[in-house]
């Protein structure tokens, strides 16, 4: 049995497949690049760790708890630790809701910022649209030479600038 091979039709079919391949590759590359470019850099993890570190420097000196911390007001915490927890890139009330810090020891608590953020930190798995938190527990010596367990918490929201594109 003889077949007459239609060479021209073959070539046309092949070029059709090539065009489809080009389109698929273009769509894949362009969408991958656009997704990568449009998603903002998320620096909240580093920011929250730096915030906790600044709390550590603020409450201790050479492993000893600074005594002038006792009876400090929450407003005083920001001033004492050289912190400004107001994000002026946000407007109105939102500017005061982007950070939260807390220092807990000997049943005392000093905190500042948006306290609602801490509840969101306790989620099982952190998602992109909720704040990023850092937690540190350290042992410090008090004035009587006794060890004090200090729990430090920092939370950074700034979702619009770091997670939502």
């Amino acid at each position: 049995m003889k077949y007459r091979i239609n060479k021209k039709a073959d070539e046309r079919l092949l070029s059709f497949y090539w065009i489809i391949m080009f389109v698929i590759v273009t769509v894949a590359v362009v969408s991958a690049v656009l997704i990568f470019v449009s998603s903002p850099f998320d620096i909240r993890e580093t920011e929250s760790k730096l915030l906790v570190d600044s709390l550590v420097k603020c409450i201790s000196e050479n492993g000893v708890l600074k005594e002038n911390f006792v009876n400090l007001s929450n407003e005083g915490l920001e001033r004492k630790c050289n912190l400004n927890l107001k994000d002026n890139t946000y407007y109105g009330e939102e500017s005061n809701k982007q950070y939260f810090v807390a220092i807990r020891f000997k049943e005392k608590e000093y905190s500042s910022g948006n306290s609602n953020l801490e509840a969101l930190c306790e989620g099982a798995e952190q998602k992109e649209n909720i704040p990023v938190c850092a937690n540190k527990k350290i042992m410090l010596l008090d004035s009587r030479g006794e060890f004090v367990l200090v729990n430090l918490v920092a939370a950074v929201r700034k979702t619009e600038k770091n997670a939502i594109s």
Partner: protein
Amino acid sequence: MKIKFDLNKKGTFIISDIIFLVLALSFVAILLLFISKQSSNTILIEEQAAKQIALALDALPSKTQFTMYVGEILKEKDPNFSSEVIKIDNERNVVRVKLSEKSGYEYSFFNDLFFSAELKGDYLVITSNEIQNK
């Protein structure tokens, strides 16, 4: 063993192959151009720079000088834009990077020290000072 070449045989000029090759090469070139254009996007560079500087400021202790290479950022500046590219606003605790008239990105920092920034060639020199009752 001798191989005989028939030099008189006419070669077939496959014009469709050449067109296909040119199309394929131009397709790859356009894709590469698109990727490089996107990666050197002004908005992207401004965001990256502002966040890097904000993190550096957050980590800076008082009375410290910090030098940062910003040559890559300055290279992307619009030649017609004459204003300050990197500005640290101590009043608002915000870093602003602006490479052209139409663009710009701001990011806040929480360190409440007083910072002064100066461009020295391709380097940004940031000095942290004691708080000056802002």
